[in-house]
């Protein structure tokens, strides 16, 4: 995780080249190609990088990171200071905030939005699990979170179940974006672009960060073969893909896409042996077949393995045949699965590969209907405590994530390493590698930079007027 943080920092420092004598220009449509089409626009339910990128363009969070990775106020007026040793935070909204439908944003809207994030349909409820009373909302016993107290039109106090100094980072994570449900049941956000049609968005003039430079935004998914010519022909302005897309300038996201193998307990006495065998797979070899920028991942927290004994010191029984399941939308997973198949065959285990539609994969995982699964998780925050909790949520659900977060909050590096190691053991999880994405912008696109979670800040991107460059 330290390595991830370092890489994230490097990625943050790369973008946003200075522009001599140049100020951003308003106007034009920004056309962005994502690795896949965004399918989920509800921040509480988004699950892929494409969903996150769409949320970054359309939603606003209470806090956010600037282009150097420093936390700064978003919808809030100032950064909240921890009170009571980090057990509570007093939040004050900036004046004059509005949702994209023109309705003012009040403290009660924030409370309702966080309660919505904590609710049963949310897959990111773990982000609220440190707030007192969030469990009751998750389990449907309460509508609002008891630990969130509205003090005035613009002020609220959040009380936590335990001290958590990184809690503001949870408020900066994209799933914590502030939304409201209008009378028609539609979700309304407060980000730079508001919905204007099928994956098209219009500039929101009253956005808290200021009106975006582009008048409109179009998001679409594109594979490698479609992205490169679209960028070259100026049919697209930005293309985000795992592989290198020729043309224009390039940025690279932090490698926040973790790929893990999870072994199901249904393998019985051979589960542990399978876990050990998977752990012995050469990760460096795996990443050779991944076209995205990738780094081997020997543990969730790299330091955690150094102190422990190597797994598999004692021979354990292995199954003769297993099925390796993975979602069908990732070439990297397919390549890794094929490599694992070969590796396990050498140890006498026949591996059948099986893809599952990406939208059904999480449900299949939750039901335990698999032998071994390759699970991709795009971290919404590189903060170690939150990253561990997200991994726990993806593999073990809300309660496990809540326990992990409670243990990780305030833990020092050694304690975090232990926690990471025990999480791997409990979940029978084998971290394999982490991947990033490459962001290509055609010539004439300026101001683009990447947030800590790898999503592009499209509100700051702007387009040169055609034919205006010259001596």
């Amino acid at each position, binding site marked *: 995780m330290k390595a991830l943080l370092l890489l994230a920092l490097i990625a943050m420092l790369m973008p946003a080249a*200075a522009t001599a*004598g140049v*100020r951003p220009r308003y106007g034009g449509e920004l056309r962005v190609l994502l690795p896949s089409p965004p399918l989920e626009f509800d921040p509480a339910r988004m699950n892929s990088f494409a969903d996150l990128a769409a949320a970054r363009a359309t939603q606003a969070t209470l806090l956010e990171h600037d282009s150097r990775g420093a936390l700064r106020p978003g919808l809030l007026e100032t950064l909240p200071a921890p009170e009571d040793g980090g057990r509570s935070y007093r939040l004050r909204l900036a004046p004059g905030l509005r949702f994209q439908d023109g309705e003012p944003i009040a403290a009660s809207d924030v409370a309702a939005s966080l309660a919505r994030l904590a609710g049963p349909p949310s897959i990111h409820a773990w982000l609220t699990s440190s707030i007192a009373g969030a469990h009751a909302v998750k389990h449907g016993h309460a509508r609002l979170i008891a630990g969130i107290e509205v003090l005035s039109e613009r002020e609220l106090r959040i009380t936590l179940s335990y001290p958590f100094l990184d809690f503001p980072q949870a408020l900066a994570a994209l799933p914590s974006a502030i939304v409201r449900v209008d009378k028609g049941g539609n979700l309304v956000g407060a980000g730079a672009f508001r919905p204007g049609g099928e994956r098209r968005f219009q500039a929101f003039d009253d956005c808290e960060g200021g009106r975006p430079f582009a008048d409109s935004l179009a998001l679409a998914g594109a594979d490698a073969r479609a992205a490169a010519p679209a960028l070259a022909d100026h049919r697209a302005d930005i293309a985000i893909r795992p592989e290198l897309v020729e043309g224009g300038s390039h940025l690279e996201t932090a490698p926040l896409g973790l790929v893990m193998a999870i072994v199901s307990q249904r393998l019985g006495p051979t589960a542990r042996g399978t876990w050990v065998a998977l752990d012995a797979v050469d990760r460096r070899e795996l990443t050779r077949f991944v076209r995205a920028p990738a780094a081997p991942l020997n543990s969730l927290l790299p330091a955690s393995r150094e102190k422990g004994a190597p797994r598999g010191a004692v021979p354990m029984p292995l199954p003769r045949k297993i099925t390796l399941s993975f979602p069908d939308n990732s070439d990297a997973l397919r390549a890794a699965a094929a490599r694992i198949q070969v590796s396990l065959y050498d140890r006498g285990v026949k591996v059948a590969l099986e893809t599952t539609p990406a939208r059904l994969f999480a449900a299949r995982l939750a039901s335990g209907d698999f032998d071994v699964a390759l699970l991709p998780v795009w971290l919404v925050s590189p903060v170690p405590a939150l990253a561990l909790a997200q991994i726990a949520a993806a593999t073990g659900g809300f309660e496990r994530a809540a326990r992990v977060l409670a243990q990780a909050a305030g833990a020092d590096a050694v304690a975090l390493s232990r926690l990471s190691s025990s999480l791997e053991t409990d979940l029978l999880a084998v971290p394999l590698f982490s991947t990033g994405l490459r962001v290509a912008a055609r010539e004439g696109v300026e101001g683009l930079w990447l947030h800590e979670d790898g999503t592009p800040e499209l509100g700051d991107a702007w387009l040169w007027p055609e034919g205006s460059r010259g001596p």
Partner: protein
Amino acid sequence: MLLLLAALLGFAGQPASGSLARAADDLVARAVAGEEGGTVALAVAGTDGGLVEPTQTALSAALSRRGQTVVLLRGIQLADPEAEARALRADLFLRVRVSLLGETLTLTGELIPTRPNFFLQRVPTARPGGSRLVSATAPADGPALAMASTHRPGTGSPSLVALGDIGERVLALAAGAVGDGTPVRLVAVTQTRVLLFDVHCALLASRPLPVAPGDRRVRDPAAVAAIGDLRGGRIGYAVAGRAESEFLSASGDRLERVASIPSGGLAAVVPLAAGGAGPLFGAFLPGRGTLADILSRSPDPQGHPRSGRELFGVAAATRPGRVAYAALGTDFTLRLLGPSLEAVFPDIPAVGVGFALADLDGDGEPEIVASSATPGPSDRVRVLRPGDRSQVIFESPPVEGMIIAGAGADLTGDGIEDAILAAALPSGTTRLWLLTWDAHGTVR
């Protein structure tokens, strides 16, 4: 015969004085002794501006007499004269500095071989041989003393001098007298304050920006500032997204509000710039850091945009000629406007957002001082002479940061205008640069 030859070669524009001609002859004799006829690129600079052009003339004549073809480097060619000499495929580059020390005329020169060398063709910047220093002196006679004392703006080349740093990012600059008979002052607008400086960049006064209920955040912070006759105050400013702009007066170490005006709407009430042809008023587009295409010589609450064109900023000439104002569009095209706001010359493309109008050479027509509109880690200052085909007459070496604002005024106190430019540095601070074409190039 000599005069006839000089006239034929076009060197008789400036008469060489006796002592100057002797010193030039002496220097050339030492410099090109043994050199067969070739091409010499010549660049002359000097601390006494009046001597530069006559020295060019005298040296050119002396070189011609010794069978050398002379290429005189001027204007933008002086930004990197050695490279220019190579580009012109000159055999030698002679760089000469003329100065008057007491009553002694001194020419100091450096002779640099620049002829193309077969063995060095892969490293074209390498000198094929070492340079040689030469000098010559002569007691200054009457004409030389007279020419040295005559200030001739526009000779030599402009110089760019760092004035000082401001600890925050400057969004707009204005320069001028903030009261009757008072010296030139600088006004800088930042995201939080209005600052008043003297020409040495010493802070005299500051005033926080007022906060109003209708204030909106703008993604691209921007401001305008003007010094002139503005509704009783001499200073006017507005900041994009702020609901209120102010007219101020400077009193001792205080900036005091004379009037405020609601500036959130789309009416021509915001002071954009002020110059010899009067102030200009306009409006920021709501929620944006750009101006609407509304330009009015007086506040006009009923004003409407003339087109959908958006502007980054407007400049006014303190001493207008045919050009009195300039407006930079968001397509980085600069439109030059006369006193009645009519377009007077063809638009100039690729002008950066830090720009100003200033009559740097004292010829009665303001030059355009412009930053670069090319993205990159550094900026450049260019001086353009307006015309049917605007001509670049100076381009500076790279300047750190991004030049974001500029203004014209006589900061050196010699009666000739200069330009001041604000470069935003990556650290979040701002460096002020003085661009002057004066003989001495120092702020007095």
